[in-house]
C-alpha cells in the first residue's frame, strides 16, 4: 500500500512537471507578450521603438522577469513555484496567489456541490433503473440520461438562464447577489446562505452529464451483481427484497462509483471553465480565459498548473478510495 502510494505520488509529480513545461511553452507561443502591449499603452504607438520606449520596455521586462529566454523564465518561475510563490500577475499587478486564491475556493465549492448533487440524484435512480430494468421507467430514464450526456453543458446553462429570466424573473448568473460579491466581503452567515441560494444552478448544469454517466454505470454494475448466485440464494431463502438488493449488491456496485467521483472532481473543475463564462461565476475559469487573452504568462500557467494539481490529486484520491472500499483489490495488492 505504501509502495503503491509513493509510486502514485511520484508519478503525479512527474505529470505535473511535464504539464508545467507544456503549458508554459504553449502560453508563450503567440507572438508578442503582455509587456509589448503595456509599453504601447504607456508610450503610445509612436513611442514604440524609440530609445526612450526601449528603455522603458527594458525596465519593465526586468521588473517582471520577462527579459530572459523562455527556458530561463520557466526555470526561475519553477524555482519560485516550488517554494509556493506563483509569481506576479502582470495584468493585475498583484501576486498570482492573491488574485486566484478565493476564486479557487469558490471553484472547489462549486465542484463539491456538483458531486454531492450528482450522488444524490444518480445513485437512487441507478438502483431503480436496475431493479426495474426493461420497464418503461427504465427506458425513459435511460433516454433522459443520454440527453443529459448529449447536451453540451454551456448550452444547458444558457437554457436555464433563459428559463429563469423569462418565467421566473430571476437572474440566474453569478454566485452572489451584489452586496456579497467581491473578495473583500467577509464570510458571514448571510454570505453563505446567499451562496447556497445561487449554487444549485451551476451544480445542476455541471452535474447533468456526470449524473447521466453514473446512472448508466450504477445500473450496469447492479444488473451484473443482481444476476449472481448469491443474490438468487438470498431471495430463495426468503430475504426481504429490499435487503436482498440494498445490503450486498448495491454495496458492491457502489465501489466503482466511489472511485469515479474522485475522478470526476478534476473533470468538473476543468469543465466549469466554460460554464463559468456563460453563467458569470467568479471561479478560476473566466480568470484563465482573461489571462490567456491578455498573455498574462505567470497567471495563466499558474492556473493551468493548479488545475493540473487538483486533477492529479483527484486521481490519487480515487485510487486510494477504491483500495479502501474494495477489499478484493486490497487483497490482490498484498
Amino acid at each position, binding site marked *: 500500500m505504501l509502495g503503491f502510494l509513493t509510486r502514485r505520488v511520484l508519478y503525479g509529480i512527474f505529470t505535473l512537471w511535464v504539464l508545467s513545461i507544456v503549458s508554459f511553452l504553449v502560453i508563450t507561443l*503567440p507572438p508578442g507578450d503582455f509587456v509589448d502591449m503595456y509599453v504601447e499603452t504607456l508610450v503610445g504607438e509612436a513611442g514604440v521603438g524609440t530609445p526612450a520606449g526601449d528603455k522603458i520596455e527594458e525596465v519593465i521586462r526586468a521588473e517582471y522577469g520577462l527579459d530572459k529566454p523562455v527556458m530561463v523564465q520557466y526555470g526561475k518561475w519553477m524555482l519560485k513555484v516550488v517554494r509556493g510563490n506563483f509569481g506576479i500577475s502582470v495584468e493585475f499587478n498583484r501576486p498570482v496567489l492573491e488574485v486566484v486564491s478565493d476564486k479557487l475556493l469558490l471553484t472547489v465549492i462549486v465542484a463539491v456541490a456538483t458531486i454531492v448533487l450528482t450522488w444524490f440524484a444518480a445513485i437512487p435512480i441507478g438502483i431503480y433503473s436496475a431493479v426495474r430494468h426493461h420497464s418503461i421507467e427504465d427506458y425513459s430514464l435511460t433516454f433522459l440520461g443520454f440527453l443529459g450526456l448529449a447536451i453540451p453543458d454551456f*448550452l444547458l446553462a444558457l437554457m436555464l438562464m*433563459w428559463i429563469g429570466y423569462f418565467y421566473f424573473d430571476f437572474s440566474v448568473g453569478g454566485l452572489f447577489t451584489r452586496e456579497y460579491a467581491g473578495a473583500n466581503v467577509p464570510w458571514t452567515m448571510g454570505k453563505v446562505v446567499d451562496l447556497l441560494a445561487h449554487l444549485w444552478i451551476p451544480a445542476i448544469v455541471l452535474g447533468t452529464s456526470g449524473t447521466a454517466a453514473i446512472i448508466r454505470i450504477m445500473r450496469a454494475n447492479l444488473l451484473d451483481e443482481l444476476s449472481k448466485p448469491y443474490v438468487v440464494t438470498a431471495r430463495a431463502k426468503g430475504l426481504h427484497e429490499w435487503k436482498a438488493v440494498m445490503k450486498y449488491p448495491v454495496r458492491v456496485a457502489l465501489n466503482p462509483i466511489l472511485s469515479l467521483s474522485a475522478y470526476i472532481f478534476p473533470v468538473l473543475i476543468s469543465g466549469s471553465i466554460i460554464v463559468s463564462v456563460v453563467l458569470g461565476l467568479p471561479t478560476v475559469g473566466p480568470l484563465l480565459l482573461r489571462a490567456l487573452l491578455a498573455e498574462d504568462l505567470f497567471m495563466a500557467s499558474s492556473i493551468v498548473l493548479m488545475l493540473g494539481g487538483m486533477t492529479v490529486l483527484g486521481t490519487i484520491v480515487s485510487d486510494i478510495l477504491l483500495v479502501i472500499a474494495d477489499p478484493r483489490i486490497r487483497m490482490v495488492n498484498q
Partner: protein
Amino acid sequence: MEEKQDLTAAQEDLEASELFLEDEEVLVAGQWRLMWWRFKKHRIAMVGAIFVIAFYLVAIFADMIAISDPRESDVQQAYMPPQTVHWFDGGFSPHVKGVIGSRDPESYKKVYAIDSDVKIPVRFFVRGYEYHLFGFIPLDWHLIGTDTGENERAAPYFLGTDILGRDQWSRIIFGTRVSLTLGLAGVGLSLFLGVFLGGISGYYGGWVDTVVQRLIEITRSVPTIPLWISLAAAVPRDWSVTKIYFAITIILALFIWTDLGRVVRGRFLALREEDFVTAARLAGARDLRVIYRHMLPNFVSHIITATTLAIPVMIISETALSFLGLGLRAPAVSWGVLLQEAQNVQTVAVYPWLTFPAVPVTIAVLAFNFMGDGMRDAADPYAN
C-alpha cells in the same frame, strides 16, 4: 385423416428445413454481415444512423438546402423573428406573411409587424443565388425558396435573421458542413495517431509500450480543457479561415487520440499471443504484413466503433471553443460560431431564435452516441 397428418408432417418438415436454411445462412455469413444483422436489431442505433446519414447529406448539399447566401447580409432585416409557414389558404398553398420593419422611436430597436395582406408563396425547387455543387458544378436552384424576383432577397426566414440580417436557417445549414467535417477530420487524425502509437505500443511491447503508455496516461491525467483553451488562444488571430480550421482540428485531435490508442493497444495485446499470429510470423511474414493482414481485420470493427463515439466529443469541443471565441471565428460559419451570438442572456431574452443552432448540436451528438452504442454491441458478432 391420414392425409391431413401427412400434410402437417410435411409442413413441419418444410418449416424445419427453413429453419435449417436460416441457420446455415448464419453459419456461412461473413463477419460484416453478422455485424450488420446485429446492428439492425438495435432500433435506436438504426434511428441514430439514419440521422447521421441525413446530417452528412445536408453537409454535402448545403448550398441546395440553404435558402439564401449565408454570407449575404442586409442590415435592414436585422434580427427578424422567425416567420411561420402557413400551409393552407383555401387549398394547399404554403406561404409566409409579409413583414414590415420599423424602428421603435423610444428604444431605437428594430420592430417587425406582420402584414397579413401580403402573401409570399413558398415554393419548392426554385431558382436562387448561384453556387457550385461539389465545388465545380454551377447551379442556381434550391430546395425551398420564394418567387420574389431576381432583385429581392429570397425570403422566408424560417428561423429568423441575425444581427446583420443574415438568414439563420441557411447559416445553420452551412454550419452543419463545417461542424461535421471538422469532427470527421479531427477524428481521422486522432485515429491515425491512435492506431499508429497504440499499434506499435501493443505489438512491440517493452520500452516502446512503456513510453507510449506514459504518454497516454499523462495526456489523460492532465486537465484537458484548460490546456486546449490555452492552445486555441495561441492560434494567431490573423490566420485565414482554412488555417484556423486545421489548427483547431489538430488541437482537438491531440487530446482525443488517447481513447483510440488504448483500444488499439488492448486489442494488439490480446491478439499478439494468438496461434494464428505466431503461425504467420513463423511462416516468415514481416511485421507490417502480420499487423495489416492478420491482426487488423480482427479489430477493425472495434476501431470504427471507438471512432464513431469520438466524433460527438469533437463536435461538442469545437462548439465550446468557438462559443468562447477561441475556435473558429467569423467569417467561418459553424454551430459554435453561430451560438457565439447567443452568449449572454440579454440577447437570448430579446432574440430567442439565436439559440436554434443548439438544436442540431444536440441532435447530432445524440445520433452519433446512439449509433456508436449499437455499433459497440455489434462489433463482436461472435459473442453469445
